[in-house]
């Protein structure tokens, strides 16, 4: 059977010029193999640290110090997870992070959607100027204005309008205020993406709504928003996962709210302190600093459980991430 097919294929090949068929198929197969090896190799490159962290996290102490154990632990254990969860106050942090992140992401996306629709569909004086300002918010890194931001929020008085200054640093309210005015983490980018998306939607829908006597806000909420749901979800998901791991606004506003980003970056020190205390209690001496391998395993574990929720979200809603920028019809 296969022999017959091969013979037929060779006969067809002989009929073409210069072995064209055979050359074409061989080069196609070669490119296919090459790209597959390359792509999966690069995939491994990206996943390797995650796998390494995972295998570190389930190793027992004896495995960590055993030079013959490299990837697969001899005595797998969940002790590191238990300790990391205790040191990070995991469930409490998870709850705090979840509600704070959801709150600010929703505020950001609501604000950005309104602004983006305004830019996409209305003509008003100075429109180009204000849109240039949107681009400016994308380009100016918030780190540049860190000092005045911190001082303004630490002694917040709304340009001297309030009688007393309020301290808004280390408080969720401060960041909520930023989010509601579309100035949160990477909000310029969301405004840009949503504006592109609204611009590409057909105008006829709104025109017929207007003819039927529907107001501007109602048209926006009832006609435009339902069609924009996939894009809104994409932007919300980006806002959510980036907020989850953000360091900049977190250190300014959420340092004492026990959010995951703070717990993850502090875990190395927390663990060292805890270890010194434990050993000093056990031996009655000053205590020892933990070995480097232990700290590394601890940080790996902390990062893994810290980002587990957003990795889960990413795996479930991967489509929204991948299609987001394509959907917006981005063009410069």
């Amino acid at each position, binding site marked *: 059977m296969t022999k017959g097919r091969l013979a037929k294929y060779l006969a067809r090949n002989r009929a073409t010029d210069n072995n064209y068929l055979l050359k074409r198929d061989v080069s196609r197969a070669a490119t*296919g193999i090459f*790209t597959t090896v390359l*792509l999966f190799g*690069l995939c491994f*490159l*990206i996943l390797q640290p*995650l796998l390494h962290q995972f295998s570190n996290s389930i190793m027992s102490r004896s495995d960590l110090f055993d030079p013959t154990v490299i990837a697969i632990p001899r005595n797998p254990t969940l002790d590191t997870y238990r300790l990391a969860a205790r040191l990070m106050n995991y469930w409490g942090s998870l709850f705090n992070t979840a509600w704070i992140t959801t709150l600010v992401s929703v505020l950001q996306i609501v*604000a950005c959607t*309104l*602004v983006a*629709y*305004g*830019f996409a569909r*209305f*003509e*008003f004086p100075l*429109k*180009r100027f204000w849109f240039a300002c*949107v681009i400016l*918010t*994308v*380009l*100016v*890194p918030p*780190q*540049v*204005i*860190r*000092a*005045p*931001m911190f*001082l303004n929020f630490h*002694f917040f008085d709304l*340009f001297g309008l309030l009688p*007393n*200054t309020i301290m808004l640093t280390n408080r969720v309210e401060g960041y909520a205020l*930023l989010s*509601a*005015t579309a100035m949160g983490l990477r909000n310029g980018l969301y405004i840009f993406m949503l504006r592109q998306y609204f611009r590409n939607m057909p105008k006829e829908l709104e025109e017929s709504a207007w003819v039927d006597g529907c107001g501007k*806000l109602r048209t926006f909420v009832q006609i435009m928003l339902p069609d924009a749901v996939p894009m809104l979800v994409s932007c919300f998901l980006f806002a959510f996962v*980036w907020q989850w*791991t*953000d*360091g*900049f606004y*977190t250190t300014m506003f959420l340092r004492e709210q026990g959010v995951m*980003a703070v717990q*993850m970056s502090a875990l190395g020190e927390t663990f*060292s302190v805890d270890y010194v205390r434990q050993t000093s209690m056990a031996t009655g001496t000053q205590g020892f*600093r933990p070995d*480097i391998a232990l*700290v590394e395993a601890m*940080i790996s574990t902390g*990062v893994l459980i810290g*980002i587990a929720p957003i990795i889960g979200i*990413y795996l479930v809603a991967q489509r929204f*991430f991948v299609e987001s*920028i394509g959907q917006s*019809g981005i063009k*410069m």
Partner: protein
Amino acid sequence: MNKQKGLSKQAVRFCLSDFLRQNRTPTMATKNAISGYLFILPFVVGFIMFLAYPLYQAVRMAFSEVWLVPEESRFGWAWSGLANIRRVLLTDAVFTRAMVEEIGSMALLVPAILVFSLFVAILLNRQFAGRGFVRAVFFLPVILASGVLVGIETNNSLLDAVSQQIQDQNAMRAGVTGVIERMLENFVGGAGMDEFFEYILEIINQIYKIAMASGIQILIFLAGLQTINPSIYEAASIEGATAWENFWKITFPMISPMILVVVVYSIIDFMVRTDSNVMDMVYTQMTLHSRYALGSAMALIYFSAVAVILGIVAFIISRLVYYYD
């Protein structure tokens, strides 16, 4: 673009004429302008309060002395001329060097990110088995390389020292690339070639960093690739164009607007990443030493340097970009 400009001028005229004939009911254009402003109001308020004003303050702080008055819960400042700037650029022993090094590695990495993400995007745009999985993995850095997760291991002082030691050992022992380097040196020689190979090998050594920094860039290129009309390729293949010609004559010009976007995004992203040395110094000045003015001056100097580079690069690329419509 021209059409838009004309319309908004018209809108201004309408608004003014409405304003002059006060008792008339407002025209459609005025109503539109008002609702437009209502929609973008959050941004206008936020921009003035939390970007424009702080930016002005940051510039002022760079030329001032700033101190805290905790009893009265406010901060004070006084003009001090170029003192901060002089201190950062001339007195500070590490800052200028860190900044130059940072910009140097930016010049190394950004072109590499550009080539890598375009290459991967073209591969991912084809049909093959397991494409969903590969795509999911390549965009994982969007999460894995964000915020505090970048360099979380090196943030720990203890770990940092050890990893430095390991790197030094590796450099001594000269790993795989070291061997290749020596082979190439023997093989090719020549002064100019050496530097070229060093650049390539440096990039190969940093391939992980590059892959981790390319998530969004791949998405942008993929979006661009999908807007190219397939019938252009069909026509070209009927004319007998090879894949190589297809790339340089169709894909590359069609995607060139995206190159501008990607370069700008990569430069900004590289500049503000969490484990950037310069940003770390700014942060230390502000939080540990409460030297707000000095930190502001550092951030501003760094940002201006990057902005100048950004401007030059954007100008050069925008000359070369090809717009299809």
